[in-house]
């Protein structure tokens, strides 16, 4: 049965199409502008002649970034922090979440509270900073002088993610585990052969959360690198920010007769920082959607 659209329905439809079109164009425009501005000529950018499409196309802004050793160094550092940080965080979280999911664990409520309390109450910036400084001294005393190992091990652990994993492990039926134990599996084998394969999608989602937060990590990385005085350990986010703060130097860096505006250099840098995530986005999309739905967990 084909119904005629009612007036109210029609109005609502028109409203939603217009609103969504405007909103999504607003979301898109800054990126389009960034791309255009990064490849436009100096005069066009400095005098705001670039509105939507690039003008006097040049690629020198990009090539100057690609020729900058510091940029590649920062990129490598970010990759290092993301890869090792994610592996460490997800490893610790899987082990902890698995143990917490077991009903036979003694003091289970105590351990859970220990975890959840950190979501309610955090010490704040200053005590946290003092703590990181102290632990860095300890790290240096045992021979780990690189700040990046402290960043990998100490930062980015999240109680929420461990709780998500715990809930996923609790959902695995105990019969399979019992069967595995009868077959002589050890505790660790039960985890790796039964629990991990059966909660793959949650683990992938949580790993994604960790990975994103590592890739985006800025504040503490900057503080710790400033405190330890090792500028060549700075990750990409810190590198971008320092360049923006040093905006006027950027111009002299590029040289007054450079064919591109300092604005173009910053836009090009922004694009370089976004592109890796856009490339892997199609592969991680479904975990993204799953992740936000897990936000409303209950116990």
């Amino acid at each position, binding site marked *: 049965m084909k119904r005629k659209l*009612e007036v*109210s329905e029609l109005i*609502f439809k028109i*409203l*939603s*199409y217009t*609103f*969504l*079109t405007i*909103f999504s164009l607003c979301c898109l425009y800054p*990126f389009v*502008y*960034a791309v255009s501005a990064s490849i436009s000529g100096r005069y066009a950018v*400095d*005098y705001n002649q*670039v509105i939507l499409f690039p003008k006097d196309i040049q690629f020198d802004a990009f090539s100057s970034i690609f020729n900058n050793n510091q940029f590649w160094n920062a990129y490598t550092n970010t990759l290092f922090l993301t890869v090792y940080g994610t592996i460490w965080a997800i490893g*610790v979280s899987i*082990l*902890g979440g698995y*143990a*917490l999911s*077991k009903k*036979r664990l*003694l003091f289970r409520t105590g351990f859970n509270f*220990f975890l959840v309390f*950190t*979501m*309610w*109450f*955090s*010490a*704040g*910036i*200053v*005590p946290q*900073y003092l*703590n990181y400084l102290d*632990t860095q001294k300890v790290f240096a005393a045992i021979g780990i002088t690189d700040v990046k190992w402290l960043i990998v*091990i*100490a*930062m980015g*652990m999240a109680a929420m993610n461990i709780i998500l994993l715990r809930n996923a492990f609790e959902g695995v039926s105990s019969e399979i585990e019992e069967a595995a134990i009868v077959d002589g599996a*050890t*505790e660790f084998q039960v985890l790796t052969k039964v629990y991990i394969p059966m909660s793959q999608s949650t683990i992938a989602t949580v790993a994604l959360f960790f990975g994103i937060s590592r890739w*985006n990590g800025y*504040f503490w990385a900057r503080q710790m690198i400033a405190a330890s005085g090792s500028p060549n350990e700075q990750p990409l*986010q810190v590198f*971008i*920010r320092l360049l923006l703060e040093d905006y006027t130097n950027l111009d002299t860096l590029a040289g007054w007769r450079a064919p591109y*505006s300092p*604005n173009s250099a910053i836009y090009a840098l922004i694009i370089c*920082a*976004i592109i890796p995530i856009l490339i892997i986005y199609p592969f991680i999309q479904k975990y*993204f959607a799953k992740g*936000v739905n897990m*936000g*409303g*967990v*209950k*116990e």
Partner: protein
Amino acid sequence: MNDEYLVYNEELNRYELDPEQKVRDDVEKNRWKLNWQLIVKDWRLYAMLVPMLLVFLIWRYFPMYELLGCFKITEVGKEVAQMKWCGFANFKSLMFGGTTQTTAFWRAFRNTFLLSFYGLLFGFPMPIILALFFNEIKSNILRSVYQVLTYLPKFMSTVVMTTLVSMLLKQGDLVSGTGIVSLALAKIGLISRQTADLGLLNNPDFFRAIYQISGIWEGAGYDSIVYFAAIIAISPTSYEAAQIDGADKMAQMRYVVIPSILSTIVIMLINRIGSLLSIGYEKVMLLYNTNTWVTADVVSTFSYRLGLEDGSQAMASAAEMINNVTGMILVIGANSIARKASDVSLY
């Protein structure tokens, strides 16, 4: 006389300990031994907990010990443990001291609350509205295009996002012109050209608006996923039944869609209220400057400057303590109200 564990011995004409009680006492006494045996037998499980406990203990709980510095007198070059206690003196001078710090603290406290509150007022309904509109688009391809476009800003890190914002709103200077968005706003008459040229990020009147709008731009699309998932879970028969009863679009919204996604909205709302005072300091720190402290300075950034730049750690810790304790009360309160009102709770 309580005769639970004492029995009357008639031969000796006195009370004696019940022999069964002795067994019970033994069990009680050896409970820890039994537990210990359980732990030893199951040591692999407990070993799995150790890395997590260590990480949280060292980097989450030790800082809380450092936070105790707020009850002590700051002495340069000393550990928190060695400082002298001074009770609530730091709190007193911070909250009622009448110094410049006091005014700055209350300003920061008000800003923290206002930024969150406006986020709740404007930022919270936006994803819901988006999800309702997404539901109207019947073509799957078109809807996916809209969705991907609105998720796009979520892929930027805070640094990239704030860099982009400050480039688009930047002041005009000798080197290069005013940011393109400022220019556009001046063109349509929302702000004067002069304001645009001075840089919107240098103007305290605009900080809150920039903060909220960039927040919506960044997160609304992504946050709408949750609501959209709840909306598409509504069975089409509900709509049909409503239509047969003569409900127009508004009535369908009112009586079918909103009640179905209400529990999701409640959960998200509690979550939001709970984090009312834990405003993301990173974004504020990246967007504010000395000119906009009046509206932009939040408690975290205030105590960061106080503690790490002015070297007054005790005061800074006191400020954080006030903020965090109030925040914790809000979280626990919101959660327990939710648990009472419905069966949904967050933890």
